[in-house]
C-alpha cells in the first residue's frame, strides 16, 4: 500500500517534481528543523568549555545547566534561582495575557469578516490588516516606541483632551510592549478563526435567533463551539510566538522588565555560553508545549482540529 501511495504521488507530480518535493521536504524537515534542534538539545547537557577542551575528558554530559535555572549558581544563598525563574514565570504570564488580549480583540473581527460573506468592504478590511506586515518587525516596534513615548501621539492626545496632566510612561508600564506584541500577532489570531467561522452556516445563527437566543447565547452555544479549532490554533500560535519574541521586548520593554528570551539571548551572545542558553531555551519550549497541551485538554480540543 505504501508503494501504491508513492507511485500515486509520482504519477500526480511527475518524476522530476516528485523527487524534488521529497528531497526538498526531507531537507527542510531533517536538516533545517530536526538536526539543529537535536544538536541544541545535545548542547544543553554539556559543559561550557573553551574550544580546545571540546571532545576532551571534561566534555561529559551533565544536568548542571538545568540545575542552574532552578537553583542558581553554586553558593546562591536562596533556595532557588529567584531572578531567572521570576522572569520565566512573568514571561509566560505576559504571553498568556497577550494571547487573551488578542483573542478578545480578534474574535469580533474574525466573526464579522467570516459572516459578512466577503463583500467589498471585507476585502478592504483584510488588506488593512495585512499591509502593516509588509513593514519589518524592528521598524514596527520602534514606531510603537514613538507612538507611546512621552511626547507620542497617545500622550499628546490624552493631554489635549484633558484626560491627564502629565504624560504616562507607557514604556515603563509595559503598555507599549503588550500593545506591540498584541499587534504583531493579530493576523495569526484572526485568520484561523476567520477560516472556521466563514464556514459556519448562517442559518444556524438565524435559527437560534428565531428561537429567541440572545447574542451572548448564540456565541456561547453556537459560534464559539464551532470556532474552537480556529480559536485554539490562533491562541497556540500567539502564545508560542509571544513567549518566544525577542525584538519587541528588547525595544518596547520597560527598563526593569526582562523577557525570558532576552536572558537566553544573553547566554548565547554576551555570555557565549551556548549550553546554558540551550538549556534555558529547551525549558521554555517544553513548558510552552506543556501549557498548550494542557489548555487544549481542558477545552477538549483535538490536535487534529488545529491543522484545519
Amino acid at each position: 500500500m505504501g508503494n501504491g501511495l508513492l507511485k500515486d504521488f509520482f504519477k500526480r507530480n511527475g518524476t522530476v517534481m516528485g523527487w524534488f518535493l521529497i528531497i526538498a521536504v526531507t531537507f527542510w524537515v531533517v536538516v533545517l528543523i530536526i538536526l539543529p534542534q537535536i544538536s541544541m538539545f545535545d548542547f544543553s547537557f554539556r559543559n561550557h568549555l573553551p574550544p580546545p577542551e571540546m571532545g576532551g575528558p571534561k566534555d561529559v554530559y551533565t544536568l548542571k545547566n538545568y540545575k542552574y535555572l532552578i537553583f542558581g549558581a553554586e553558593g546562591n544563598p536562596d533556595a532557588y534561582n529567584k531572578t531567572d525563574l521570576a522572569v520565566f514565570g512573568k514571561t509566560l504570564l505576559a504571553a498568556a495575557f497577550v494571547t487573551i488580549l488578542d483573542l478578545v480583540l480578534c474574535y469580533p473581527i474574525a466573526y464579522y469578516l467570516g459572516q459578512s460573506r466577503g463583500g467589498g468592504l471585507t476585502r478592504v478590511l483584510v488588506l488593512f490588516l495585512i499591509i502593516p506586515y509588509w513593514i519589518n518587525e524592528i521598524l514596527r516596534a520602534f514606531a510603537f516606541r514613538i507612538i507611546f513615548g512621552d511626547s507620542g501621539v497617545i500622550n499628546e492626545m490624552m493631554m489635549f483632551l484633558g484626560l491627564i496632566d502629565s504624560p504616562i510612561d507607557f514604556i515603563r508600564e509595559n503598555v507599549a510592549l503588550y500593545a506591540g506584541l498584541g499587534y504583531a500577532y493579530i493576523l495569526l489570531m484572526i485568520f484561523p478563526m476567520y477560516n472556521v467561522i466563514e464556514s459556519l452556516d448562517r442559518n444556524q445563527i438565524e435559527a437560534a435567533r428565531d428561537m429567541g437566543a440572545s447574542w451572548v447565547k448564540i456565541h456561547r452555544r453556537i459560534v464559539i463551539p464551532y470556532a474552537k479549532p480556529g480559536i485554539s490554533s490562533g491562541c497556540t500560535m500567539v502564545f508560542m510566538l509571544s513567549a518566544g519574541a525577542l525584538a519587541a521586548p528588547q525595544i518596547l520593554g520597560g527598563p526593569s522588565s526582562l523577557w525570558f528570551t532576552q536572558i537566553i539571548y544573553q547566554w548565547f551572545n554576551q555570555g557565549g555560553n551556548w549550553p546554558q542558553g540551550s538549556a534555558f531555551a529547551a525549558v521554555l519550549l517544553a513548558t510552552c508545549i506543556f501549557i498548550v497541551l494542557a489548555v487544549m485538554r481542558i477545552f477538549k480540543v483535538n490536535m487534529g482540529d488545529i491543522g484545519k
Partner: protein
Amino acid sequence: MSEGVGVDLQDVWIKFGEFVAVRQANVNIKGGEFFSFLGPSGCGKTTILRAVSGFLEPSDGKILIGGNDMAGFGPNERPTALIFQNLALFPLMKVWENIAFSLEVKGASASERRKRADELLDMIALTGQGDKLPSELSGGQRQRVAIARALCAEPDVLLLDEPLSALDLKLRQHMRTELREIQKRVGITFIYITHDQGEALTMSDSVAVMKAGIIDQIADGKSIYDDPATAFVASFVGENNVFRGTVKKVTKDMAVISTNRTGDLRARIPASAQTKLSLGDQAMLFIRPEALDVTESKNKSDTRIKAKVHHSEFEGQGYNVFLEGSEGKEIKMSLTNRGETRMYDSGMELTLHYDANQAVALPAGELASE
C-alpha cells in the same frame, strides 16, 4: 387546543435595491390551515417566508399574524418558528439539546428540557435517540428533529422552507403524509414552501402559485389543477398540452380557439378567467394528457385531433403515448392500463378525443419553462 392563528399579507412588496422580489402579495391564511406557496426556484418564496418570520421587513404593505401588525417585531418576538431549507440543526449539540434549545433560551432547567425533548422524540418516533449527534441520524430523522425543534417553541405558525427537498423520492412521499399528520395533531397553522407541485397538492388546504414575485392564484389543490387562473399556473402545475391560437367564438364559460396548427378546439373558461377572453384575443388552450382519449364516448364533445404515434411508454399503471399532430405539433396522451392488450406502435394514425369541459382556455401568457 387553540383555534389556530391566521396570517395575512396585505399589499406586501419586498425589494432588494431595485430588484422586486415580491410584488403586491395579498394572502389570507386561515388559522390551523396547511398553506403552501408553490413556485419555481427564485420566484420569491423564501423571501416571503423570511418576511413572515421577521428576518426581513417588507418594503411596503403589512403582515398580520393573528390580526396583529407585525411591523417592527423581530423573529424572536413573533409566534412563528421557521424550519430552514437546510434544516440548520446545531451540529455540535446532541439531538435532545437541539430540540429543547428554545427552552434553554428561556432558562429552563436541564431536567425540564430533557423531559420535553423526550416527549417530542416520542412524537416524531425517535424515542431513545436523544443522545446522538444530528450527524449520526439519517436524512429523514434529521428532518423530523428539525420539526420537533421548531414545535418545542410552541409556535402558533410553523414556517417550512422546502424541508423535504434534500430527501430521496421515497422518503419524501413518506414525509408528506407524516407532516400532514403532525399538522393535524398539533393543530397550528403551517406555511409550507415548495417548488414541487406534488407536495403542494397532496398536503395543502390551500396553495398560492407564484411566478417571479407575483402570486398568480390562491386556491385549494383541486381548483389549481382543474381551474388554473393563468397560463403559467396551467403549465407549472401538472402536465399540459398547450395549443396557441386566437379566440374564434366565446360565451360566458366556453370558447372556441382557432389554433395555429390543430384547427378549431373547444374548451371551458375557468371562473377566474371569465370576461378576460374576447373575440380575436391571443389565447392558449390546455388539455391534460389524461384528458385525451382514443375511444369516442357519448359524453365526449365533438372536438377531435388527428395525430400519429411517435412512440409510447408503458408505465405499469398506464401508457404515455407521444404523438405528432399536424405540422409536427407534439402531443402527449396518458391512458390508464385496464388490461387491454393494445399497444400503440410508432406510425399509427389516431383520432384523439377530449371532453371540452376538461380542457381550459386562458388568455395567452408566459409559460413555466421546464
